[in-house]
């Protein structure tokens, strides 16, 4: 049992507490909120907030492809990142690529070949965990636009404090004092309409896989795996929230 696991055990038994500025427990996420379809012109839109971090996503498409060099057998995804202030820089360019690749892996791209799906992400407020918030917003907006998806995805930020604790969904001020943090994207758990056992692949249950991982800062491999573990358990709550908000939207539409 390494230090982090020991510390975590102590935490879970209520023997220790670490202080977070906003009084949350290490495993506690910030309040989530999600609203759909509030932009008229876009084919699908969503506004997603983790506490004070808010991102608006708009989806246009599938529309006829415009870029050359694209795969004629597949649709392509285009992501445009709009920062709340200033110009788009190197970090934002990287965010665009991360979101693009993540969305490409959850969309059924072969349904509408040689078309383009445009995703515009407008940052409203950044208080840490911006990229996970944007991915969640984009995913909700894709559903809103009726883009065929393989499954949903939820994203979360896991941080590792200097003292070796794992905290979930850190705020910006927390992020700066962390030793390392990682942005993870997990697939949403399946609810198959087919009778029988839930889908599982050779190595383990479907929802145990990681779609995307980016890290910042240096940590031990054990701690990284531990972050994945904690992120995964929290992703269930996120999935549940996403699923509920989507059901609510469908009910209100009908």
């Amino acid at each position: 049992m390494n230090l982090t696991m020991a510390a975590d055990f102590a935490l879970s038994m209520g023997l220790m507490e670490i202080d977070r500025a906003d009084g949350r427990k290490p495993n506690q996420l910030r309040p989530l909120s999600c609203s759909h379809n509030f932009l008229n012109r876009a084919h699908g839109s969503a506004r997603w907030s983790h506490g004070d971090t808010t991102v608006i996503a708009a989806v246009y498409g599938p529309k006829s492809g415009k870029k050359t060099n694209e795969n004629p057998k597949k649709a392509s995804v285009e992501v445009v990142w709009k920062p709340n202030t200033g110009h788009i820089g190197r970090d934002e360019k990287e965010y665009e690529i991360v979101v693009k690749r993540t969305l490409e892996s959850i969309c059924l791209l072969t349904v509408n070949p040689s078309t383009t799906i445009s995703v515009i992400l407008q940052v409203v407020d950044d208080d840490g965990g911006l990229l996970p918030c944007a991915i969640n917003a984009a995913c909700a907006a894709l559903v809103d636009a009726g883009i065929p998806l393989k499954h949903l995805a939820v994203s979360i930020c896991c941080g590792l404090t200097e003292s070796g604790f794992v905290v979930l969904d850190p705020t910006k001020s927390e992020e700066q004092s962390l030793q390392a943090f990682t942005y993870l994207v997990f697939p949403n758990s399946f609810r198959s309409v087919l009778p029988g056992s839930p889908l599982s692949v050779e190595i383990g249950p479907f929802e145990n896989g990681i779609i995307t991982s980016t890290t910042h800062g240096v940590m031990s491999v054990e701690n990284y795996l531990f972050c994945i573990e904690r992120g995964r358990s929290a992703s269930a709550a996120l999935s549940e929230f996403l699923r509920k908000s989507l059901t609510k939207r469908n009910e209100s539409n009908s």
Partner: protein
Amino acid sequence: MSSKSSSTTTMITTYSPSPTVKNRQPIIKDVDWARPDKRGFHQCRPAYLNTGTVNAASGSAYVEFGSTKVIVSVFGPRESKKASMYSDIGRLNCNVSYTTFATNFRGQGTENKEISSMLHKALEGAIILESFPKTTVDVLLWCWNPVAVSFLLCDLPVVISCASLALADAGIMMYDLVTSVSVSCLGSNLIIDPITEEETYQDGSLMITFMPSRHEVTQLTLTGEWSTPRIHEAMQLCMDACCKLGEIMRSCLKDAAASSES
């Protein structure tokens, strides 16, 4: 895998520390004057040529002339970009870039635009553009190591010769290989294949790009004050060197072809 933005740091002004006292080399009119790299007046820099260095390109070449190193990749013929107008003949697109460490001052100058267009003009006449209608051939060129101050025109002959070698390697149809050599006029001397240091002190320069087998000139650049007999002398010198360079390039291509067959 970026983490923190470096935008704040780029605002800081920097400078390269250079010696305060510059020991200026006197302009020498003496015949005994030796060139900085100990060459004879009519002796070119040692050249190393190689083709097929870039795996991803359809043709490529790497050359070293003294300390100047140039790598060229040729892509295509491929579909013309954008909705460009229909054309019966192919297009040639040249792009010369200098690495940021090629000059003493970090950062790209504006010379690369000028050199790109000169390269385009020099090659255009030699390529059979009719052989690839509606498509584009891209010539991308990286130049590094010219220990130069600001104006990098002295590498243009190297750039042109290397580009034509890469075009030949890519199998683009050409009337002939294009070779290029320049001559500087320093006082009463004509020196061939000048390096940057010599170019700073020159009174005039002449550069030709030449097709050796056809004995045709595709481009001629002349700067400074020249008398007609001097021009004639310089032209003869350049053409002679071009023919010899052409032979070297030809044998380089033959060797490459032979080794790929075996």
